């Protein structure tokens, strides 16, 4: 009896604001729990890695403070220098060329050709295959002793050389080739979608203006694809930065250490060499480089939005 009299008024005493809040609780949970988990893991993991980069951690994380020693020691290795140079080269080459190839494929497929479905599937399927498989198969194909070069040589053109895989200076481009093969289909799909949503009036207008196919694409259609280009670039950049399995299977970082990339160096230091601290330092430096690219872009976008809002 006394329990129920205590219970009922307290239930009705809930203020309307709390009631309204309770009603919205499910949606708050659905929005915030995943977002906070996702954003939280990014923040916490990055912070943790940063912390570890200042500790003397080797096989397992330990507390302690060694200042910048891990950083100087990573910066002192040739691996890091090579990896960093390669990231710039590979990042640029892979992103730009994949986008271009993807665009070319999209334009070709967009020419009212027969068998579009089949062709599209052919260009897309490499996305479905794991990087390990891609790397392995391309290491056969690009190997001068058994792949393309051998095939051409055997066909009679004996002076033909395609030995980038074993050429220290060119090996990084074999990773670009395999990467293009794997990712250009995705770029193609996005571009094709973009091409197909260009307003028909725009094309009519350009046709009336007498634009030929080349001018049509370069001056009229492509400029409208700008947002898609940015999306493609971001996705490809993310690929480039995280490229790991592909290199491990294709060149193993070689010839020598000529095709090291930051993701490999990070993994190598952290786990192969048992230097968690140095590996973390490498990871932090890579993320800082990335922020160096992303922050200006973000700031620019923010500025453009502010300008648009104020206009």
């Amino acid at each position, binding site marked *: 009896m006394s329990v129920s009299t205590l219970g009922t008024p307290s239930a009705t005493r809930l203020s309307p604001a709390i009631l309204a809040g309770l009603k919205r609780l499910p949606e708050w949970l659905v929005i915030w729990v995943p977002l906070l988990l996702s954003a939280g893991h990014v923040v916490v993991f990055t912070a943790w890695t940063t912390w570890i980069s200042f500790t003397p951690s080797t096989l397992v994380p330990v507390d302690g403070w060694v200042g910048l020693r891990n950083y100087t020691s990573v910066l002192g290795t040739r691996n890091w220098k090579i990896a960093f140079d390669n990231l710039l080269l590979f990042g640029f080459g892979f992103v730009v060329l994949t986008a271009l190839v993807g665009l070319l494929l999209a334009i070709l497929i967009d020419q009212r050709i027969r068998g579009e*479905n089949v062709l599209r599937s052919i260009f897309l*399927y490499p*996305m479905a295959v794991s990087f390990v498989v891609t790397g392995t198969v391309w290491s056969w194909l690009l190997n001068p002793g058994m792949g393309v070069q051998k095939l051409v040589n055997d066909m009679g053109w004996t002076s033909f050389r395609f030995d980038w895989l074993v050429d220290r200076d060119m090996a990084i481009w074999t990773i670009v080739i395999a990467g293009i*093969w794997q990712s250009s289909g995705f770029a193609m799909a996005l571009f094709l979608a973009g091409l197909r949503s260009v307003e028909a009036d725009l094309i009519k207008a350009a046709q009336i203006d007498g634009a030929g196919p080349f001018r049509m694409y370069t001056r009229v259609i492509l400029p409208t694809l700008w947002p898609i280009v940015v999306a493609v670039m971001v996705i490809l950049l993310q690929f480039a930065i995280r490229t790991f399995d592909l290199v491990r299977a294709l060149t193993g970082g070689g010839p020598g250490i000529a095709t090291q990339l930051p993701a490999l160096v990070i993994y190598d230091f952290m786990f192969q060499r048992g230097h968690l601290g140095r590996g973390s330092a490498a990871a932090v430096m890579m993320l800082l480089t990335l922020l160096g690219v992303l922050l200006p872009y973000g700031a620019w976008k923010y500025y453009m939005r502010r300008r648009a809002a104020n206009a």
Partner: protein
Amino acid sequence: MREQSGFAGPPSVGRAVVYAVVILLAAGYLVPMVVVVLNSLRTAEEIAQTSMIGWPKVWAFQNYTAAWSDFCIAQTCSGIRPYMLNSALVTLPATVFSTLLGAVAGYAISLWRFRGDSWIFALVTLGVFLPEQMRLIPWTIVLRDVGLTNTLSGLVMIHTIQGLSFTTLFCRNYYVAIPQDLMKAARIDGAGFFRIFHRIVMPLSPPILIVTVIWQFTHIWNEFLYGVTFTTGTQQPVTAALIALSASVADVPQYGVQSAAVVVAAVPTLLVYLFGGRYFVRGLTAGAVK
């Protein structure tokens, strides 16, 4: 919006060139698959004694039985079959969870706009750039602390949380194109957060959901590092089984069976692309909500 933007030029040299280029490129794209499929039909001995690239002398169809149900990983001789199941048990729930939660999150960020949304979106998006290698040890600690070490549920959790970066990014960018007026109209009609999502946003979403499902499915299916580190024994995903087949220094590489296993293991992702791919471009094209 149009179905095609090609220009009906004269049926001339130009078109012939287009066809020639497309067919040449398509053939080039197919080469790696052809090589793998051919190797999957050659015996290990034949490959070892000749070259990695070649036409089968004898068709070794037994590679497929070996890959599917016979070859041994340590004392377990069951082929990749059980590992395929493990991969499915991780990939399917993780794909569904990350896609759904990402869709809701993207919807909330793009259409509801709340305080701090752009910050949290920036952080979530940053997640796509974090190398997996960097996250390995933190995940180890997390799994230990939530008690999911060596469980498939642990992998599902990891892939769901990590996958949210992609799915949220994709969905948010797609949903931004939904006009705000639609949201206003729905709110005046009395629809709440979930009803708008369910009745208005979801029906518009198949294109982007197909994209995220394809993306998540292939990435989780092909993932290796977490798969071997966070599972044990017979719980391992199929990628681990594939690697088990690859050469160690002390062994002749089992290229024949390995290639067969690669082909079999790639079937689910290839199917996803084949069936999803049809809606992929069409979906993206229809993306602009009028």
